């Protein structure tokens, strides 16, 4: 064998790829790049801001409910609100959302009630029979496994010639899962109307991105499936919405799948069962607080005279109220009869299992 690697050799290039990055608002709220069309109407931006604030208010409350024993394990989205809200705002009701467990901002935007989300994390299946679009998927816990569903949903749209789009949200950790890969590859082959969106919060529980993958960006993973990806500043809700809108519109008009990597940061613990201080220094978290998505948008809106202190206070109060009311409804939700664990197992419970259901009947409700 030759010892010399033939490194000097210049082989002909047969394919070239590039990954681009989208960002508009700098962390201080100044405009780093001319804004997309929709942003000309500050009312649109205000609606995004309001949704982010509501999401955070809900999130904080959910964590405190867990801490006081009134909710199960919960996964907060602290610092990542712009991703879920930006994406959801680019969708139509008839599109299908396939969320992960950290996308409550998107669920709320699409009409899921706060008490339903609480019910689910409070350990009650009824929370998933939610008030959002009936065709949306429930939050997916087994990481990445919703990606093939998204491809299947998109296939149905294509087959029926419906101008609808499947939107699949997942984390950076999910990009290591084979099922995501298989789904993306299929979406490429059939040019399906599906948008894959990686919420790159740079951590998968305690595993930092550099141990998750060696790829310089997550966006470039789409190259393997024969379509394109783009990185966006995931703390800039304008960038997220612009990227999602572009991708969703393209998919809706038959232009096939797209991949978006939204770079953000998980400012909180992975879940209420996690203690992030075990594996990452507070300085890192502190540094990222400077880039979180609220301040920049607020600054921009203020600079545009579209927002001010009084609105801020009013909004805080309103969110507080809405959240509290939802919590009340959640806590007031009636108990379940144990035999309901057999409900909806099948369209009709097979005879073979009716005895088991009967056995449970009469045991105290929970």
């Amino acid at each position: 064998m030759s010892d010399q690697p033939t490194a000097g050799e210049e082989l002909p290039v047969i394919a070239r790829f590039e990954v681009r990055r989208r960002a508009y608002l700098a962390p201080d709220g100044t405009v780093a790049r001319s804004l997309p069309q929709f942003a000309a109407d500050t009312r649109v931006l205000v609606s995004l801001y309001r949704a982010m604030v509501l999401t955070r208010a809900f999130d904080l409350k959910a964590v405190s409910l867990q801490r006081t024993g009134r909710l199960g394990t919960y996964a907060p989205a602290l610092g990542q609100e712009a991703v879920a809200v930006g994406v959801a705002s680019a969708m139509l009701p008839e599109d299908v959302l396939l969320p992960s467990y950290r996308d409550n901002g998107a669920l709320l935007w699409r009409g899921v009630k706060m008490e339903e989300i609480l019910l689910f994390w409070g350990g009650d299946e009824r929370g998933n029979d939610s008030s959002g679009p009936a065709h949306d998927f429930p939050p997916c816990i087994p990481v990445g496994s919703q990606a093939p569903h998204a491809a299947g949903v998109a296939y149905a749209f294509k087959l029926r010639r419906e101008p609808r789009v499947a939107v699949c949200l997942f984390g950076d950790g999910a990009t290591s899962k084979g099922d995501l890969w298989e789904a993306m590859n299929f979406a490429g082959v059939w040019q399906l109307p599906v948008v894959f969106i990686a919420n790159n919060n740079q951590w998968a529980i305690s595993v930092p991105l550099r141990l998750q993958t060696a790829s310089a960006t997550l966006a470039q993973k789409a190259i393997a499936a024969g379509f394109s990806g783009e990185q966006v500043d995931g703390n800039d809700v304008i960038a997220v919405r612009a990227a999602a809108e572009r991708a969703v519109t393209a998919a809706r008009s038959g232009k096939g799948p797209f991949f978006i990597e939204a770079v953000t940061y998980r400012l909180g613990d992975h879940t209420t069962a996690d203690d992030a201080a075990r594996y990452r220094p507070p300085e890192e978290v502190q540094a990222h607080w400077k880039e979180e998505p609220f301040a920049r948008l607020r600054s921009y809106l203020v600079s545009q005279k579209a927002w001010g202190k009084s609105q801020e206070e009013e909004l805080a109060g309103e969110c507080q109220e809405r959240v509290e009311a939802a919590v009340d409804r959640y806590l007031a939700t009636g108990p379940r009869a144990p035999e309901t664990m057999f409900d909806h197992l099948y369209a009709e419970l097979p005879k073979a299992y009716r005895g088991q259901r009967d056995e449970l009947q009469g045991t105290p409700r929970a």
Partner: protein
Amino acid sequence: MTLVEAVNAALARALADDSNVVLLGEDIGVNGGVFRATIGLQQRFGRERVVDTPLAEALIGGLCVGMAAQGLKPVGEIQFMGFLYPCIDQLVNHASRLRHRTQGRLSCPMVLRVPHGAGIRAPEHHSESTEAMLAHIPGLRVVMPSSPERAYGLLLAAIRDPDPVIFLEPTRIYRAVKGQVEDNGEALPLDVAFVLREGRDVTLISWGAMVRETMAAADQLAAEHLDAEVIDLATLKPYDAETILASVAKTGRCVIVHEAARTGGFGAEIAASIAERALLSLLAPPVRITGYDTVIPLPRLEQHYMPSVGRIVAAARKVCQFS
């Protein structure tokens, strides 16, 4: 019609009857599937309704879930049972519980067809019979036909069923048996066992390809004046305990026959429920005649792995002599 032709006829019928039915799998299009179960269907129904997928089993399972949630009626094909394993995640974590976890908001009316079992001298990993793994999963149905008639009628039923059905097709009898099948679109009932032969002395219970050897054993036993009742379980999940118990109440003796490895095979469930619910009618221990607790061997030894007619007859004889 052979069993595989019956499968083809049922698929064609379902595709023709219901525009929501979509087939997907590896090589099911132009090639008609490696067993030719889907032959001619892509030509007839187009490449969007008979979809050649990339080589990816988790994908096939997951696509079915996504399609089903959208109201399609996907019928996936896994090429051999040995390649089903990457798809189990989708079956257990999603297909079987989409309805339950959304409390009926979404549902998963899918069918996954999987060629099952040994005996066709196929290469490594092509002869698996791990139906027990699936029959343990709440929310699934697991069905295995043992004749062309039942293949046709049960597959139609599976496709029309509003919940996920794993449809296991015994490759060994894909072409080995022929039967009169009327392609009339009539489904057979799921969740019901079929009494293929009535008898008084001993109950033989089996499913899939092994029903053949079991019936042959009943013939041999008849020659010895032992009158065997033969039950084809047909649906393994949920299974029809009543028919089994009624038979054992009558005969007091039973032999359960399956090809899968013995330990934790589905025969254990049958034997356990007989012991639990019919102990007093038992005149002899319920016996399982099964594949051995080893990796299904390559073709040279596979015949020695699978229960033979001789082993079934010997077991039944012994059970009948027990007192």
